[in-house]
């Protein structure tokens, strides 16, 4: 991908990249579990303001399946978008307790919708690759907004 970073800083969870029509986020994680958790955090940071400081009284169990880590990542994010849309909830904390290329199990915590700022229609596979780096893992995800 030849996307240009917008605000590169070190040790961040994610950064937003330029994309003409949709939303492009580059996600970082020291390991795959952190990458998956940070991807979910990044997505909800776009959906609502200031999720770092929100209370998280609601807890939900999430289990998704895939055929490899990339499909698992897309399925994980889209499952969370489903829960957000169907339950009208925002999630801010993501505890992933099982992760293989074929299955992810997690507890996510959040609250009723608040401080919503935009809509995301779906996480896509476009140009998606989970890449191992010296610091851990990175993935660039394009969302339909």
């Amino acid at each position: 991908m030849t996307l240009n970073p917008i605000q590169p800083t070190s040790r961040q969870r994610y950064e937003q990249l330029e994309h003409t029509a949709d939303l492009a986020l580059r996600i970082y994680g020291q390991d795959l579990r952190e990458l998956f958790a940070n991807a979910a955090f990044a997505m909800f940071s776009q959906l609502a303001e200031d999720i770092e400081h929100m209370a998280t009284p609601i807890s939900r169990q999430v289990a998704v399946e895939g055929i490899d880590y990339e499909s698992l990542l897309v399925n994980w994010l889209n499952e969370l978008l489903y829960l957000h849309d169907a339950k009208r909830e925002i999630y801010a904390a993501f505890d992933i307790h099982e992760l293989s290329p074929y299955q992810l199990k997690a507890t996510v915590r959040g609250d009723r919708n608040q401080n919503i700022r935009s809509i995301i229609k779906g996480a896509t596979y476009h140009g998606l690759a989970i890449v191992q780096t010296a610091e851990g893992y990175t993935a660039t995800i394009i969302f339909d907004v």
Partner: protein
Amino acid sequence: MVSKKDLNRIEEYLWEIPADYRSDMRVPARIYADNDLLEAALQDRSVEQLINTACLPGVVKYTLAMPDIHQGYGPPIGGVAAMNVKDGVVSPGAVGYDINCGVRLLRTNLEAERVKPLMAEIMDALYHGVPSGVGRGGDVRVSGKDMDDVLEQGAAWAVKKGYGTKEDLEHTEEQGSLAGARASAVSRKAKDRGNDQLGTLGSGNHFIEVGEVVEVYDQEVAEKFGVFLGQLVVWIHSGSRGLGHQVCDDYIKRMQGSLSKYGIRLPDRELVCAPVDSPEGQDYMAAMACAANYAWANRQLLMHRVRTILDQVLAPHFKGRSFELIYDVAHNIAKIEEFTINGRTIKVVVHRKGATRSFGPGHPALPADYRSVGQPVLVPGDMGTASYLLVGTAEAADKSFASTCHGAGRVLSRHAVMKQVRGEELQQRLAQQGITIRGPMKGLAEEAPEAYKDIDRVVHVVHEAGLARKVAKMVPLGVMKG
């Protein structure tokens, strides 16, 4: 990256990337554009995305980009690809998450000049009365049998329930009900998301716009469409909401799992697909038709609400008000249509992603009152400039699988425009131009006019290239953003 030297100029406004440009291309890729629009398209990855769609199994003739092309995911936005139903594929990613995102245009019997003093009142009433934004439900809830009826009948369901007239259906693409819809192909999750979102606008680039006809290019066709200079008109832009997003997600997931079964190799996983004639392909077509029908029911309910509100606000000032539907078009959809290629008539699945159908005069799918002139083609622009009513042409069938542009097309990312424009300033600037804006301030800036290409130029290209002809130009007086 593709550069201009890789393209052959075929006509003044038509460029082609030959099929031998990349080894996995099955057909050439064509772009309708002038020099500047082409240069803009070459700045991002949209042309590469167009080339990727030219690699899909069963793709025929060439893939196409309209002059409003811009970067999406999977195919570009403003992209068209047709696959033979016999040996080709259908691709949920090539339709997109917002299945049957589309637009409808209403004509009134009112002169805009006389309504202008009421614009603030009108826009306030619309903003308060039409459910919009993120997570706001509508007041028509459907579940169980009613949901299945919405999915299988579309706008006809809404009319049966009293939200509109038979004439509305005649003036909607597919009469607001796409054939082949099967509610059992739609997941429980998708239905869950849809049960309180009927009649809601959504957010992003969805809008309701009250406008004025400022130019008529073709008097005869304008008369057929009931359009006159100085007329007050209303645009509604929305789609299939969370239900459509879920259908797309469900089938992308399912087809990722079936790719190897059909031996399909892809340049981009978002173009995941399945043979049209396979259980996965057939189920997707049935579910996509359901989502399309949901979108038509949604726009029908939205229009009903808009009519009611406008009538209430205008009743003290005008006698005998009418708000009739000119037409409703889908611009994210896959449709089975027949075209003649090299003398043979074949059935294809035309994927239109950010492209509008453009049937010419005499087409049997058109309503009787428009059939002699062609299909109304609705091309909304950004909130500060103009929108166009065009008419379909016979030659578009041969040139572009009867497709044309769908809007101005983005040129700046949402992020980039947010850095340049503040919502409050934009609202003031538009107010000085006589345009009343209502909506969340943040979403407003994302949709600022500077984020879009020059719609006059986009429409000029499709007019000159023969993909549709100009009928009338309209400018916004009031815009409600979702």
